[in-house]
């Protein structure tokens, strides 16, 4: 079982604090974390990210390439009902109604660092469940080696897709063992609330040790495949974005350094910190890549 080294207070802004205490109490989850949280935050030196920051600073190019475009433009996307097609090397391929598909999977809170390939970072309290619990429902066949994902393509509400900045629909992929890893989650909420459209409603992937673009949003298709799929950014610039995209301070993006990151919310003078290998999750995930040249497989 994964134990995060970040605590609740690393992300909870003061103005949500009391509300969250109430919520935690209401859920019967206990409020033990509350007491120690602030001290831990001071030790880690992490600036908490607020709901406002997390939901107003997004890369979701289908809704525009500005960071605040998704928050402005994603409101018209209807996420209920939502259907997810599951196909490829599975025993139970189907087009599933999302609410029925995931209704019996309990959600939990995961507080993860989020490191964008553009060299900025946040800390985000996701609500979701391990992807392996979802994949278990489909009957993954032994020939399947990779999982491919696809984002909704809704030209009526996504004004960004008129421009050929990327080859829509947005696609991503993981090796099966990465997908099955307990750190890899499907997120359906943030701060205990339903995930907003601009953050990838109704369900998005979160792979905390990889650059943010791997964590594909608003998923409509999950395919189990034998061959390594090509992801959208890799297709757009293969020399700049690889399939693995593990956070790695040693391997720079060709046009900028990945050695450090700017902490969103740190203000004018707060913030640039050193980037951690695997975004700080090396203990949990480095073994997945044993023997691989991570410079080659960036």
């Amino acid at each position, binding site marked *: 079982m994964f134990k995060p080294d970040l605590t609740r207070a690393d992300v909870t802004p003061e103005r949500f604090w009391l509300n969250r205490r109430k919520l935690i109490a209401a859920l019967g989850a206990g409020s033990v974390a509350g007491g120690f949280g602030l001290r831990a935050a001071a030790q880690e030196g992490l600036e908490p990210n607020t709901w*406002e*920051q997390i939901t*107003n*600073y997004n890369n979701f*190019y289908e809704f525009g*390439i500005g*960071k*605040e475009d998704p928050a402005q433009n994603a409101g018209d996307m209807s996420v209920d009902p939502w259907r997810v097609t599951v196909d490829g090397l599975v025993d139970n391929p189907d087009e599933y109604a999302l609410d029925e598909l995931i209704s019996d999977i309990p959600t939990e809170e995961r507080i993860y660092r989020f490191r964008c390939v*553009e060299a*900025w970072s946040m800390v985000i309290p996701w609500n979701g469940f391990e992807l392996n619990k979802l994949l278990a429902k489909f009957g993954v066949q032994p020939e399947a080696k990779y999982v491919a994902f696809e984002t909704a393509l809704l030209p009526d509400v996504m004004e960004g897709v008129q*421009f050929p*900045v*990327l080859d829509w629909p947005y696609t991503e992929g993981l090796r099966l063992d990465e997908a099955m890893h307990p750190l890899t989650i499907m997120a359906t909420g943030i701060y205990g609330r339903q995930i907003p459209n601009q953050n990838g409603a109704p369900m998005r992937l979160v792979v905390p040790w990889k650059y943010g673009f791997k964590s594909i949003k608003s998923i409509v298709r999950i395919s189990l495949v034998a061959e390594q799929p090509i992801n959208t950014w890799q297709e*757009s610039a293969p020399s700049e974005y690889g399939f693995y995209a593990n956070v790695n301070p040693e391997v*720079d993006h060709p*046009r*900028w*350094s990945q*050695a*450090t990151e*700017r902490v*969103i*919310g740190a*203000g*004018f*003078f707060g*913030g*640039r910190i050193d980037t951690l290998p695997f975004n700080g999750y090396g203990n949990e995930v480095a073994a997945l890549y044993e023997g691989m040249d991570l410079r080659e497989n960036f």
Partner: protein
Amino acid sequence: MVYLLGCVPGIFLLLRGMSGQLGIDPVETLEHELGLLALQFLLGSLTITPILRFARINLLKFRRALGLLSFGYLVLHLMVWLVLDQQFRLDLITAELAKRAYLIVGLISFTLLVPLAATSWSGAVRRMGAKGWVRLHRIVYLATLLGALHFVMQEKVWSPESLSYLAMAILLVGVRLLWIRAW
């Protein structure tokens, strides 16, 4: 008067910064807005002659102000990058400058503009002679192209905004190449 007007967007940025209205990542916003202002004023200064030639409207007296305002915003843009973005970490800054083409392009553009700003006073024209001064200040064409290129190069994708600035720069410089026969 033009200087005062030209400072308005800068003061506006400052006020937004002080009241926390520069968005979620104020450093990025400030850096990008200042760079954009520098490019806009630079392009603006290059429209003066075409406006005179094509529309017969004489705005020559504003040209120096536009150029100097551009340079002022450029200095601020560079300072924000050095101090707020890179946090003055010299190890990072030197490593970045050595490796990143878009930074090198931007820095060359800035360096080319330094002598132009330094010779922008009326006395410099007298001392250098009008012909030499005009020759020196043709550097602005190269600096403008490089500035617009720097904007395009740092984008993750081909964005319509940065490409339209590059197109404007090419147009304004291109028209000079047609005019200038003898260098």
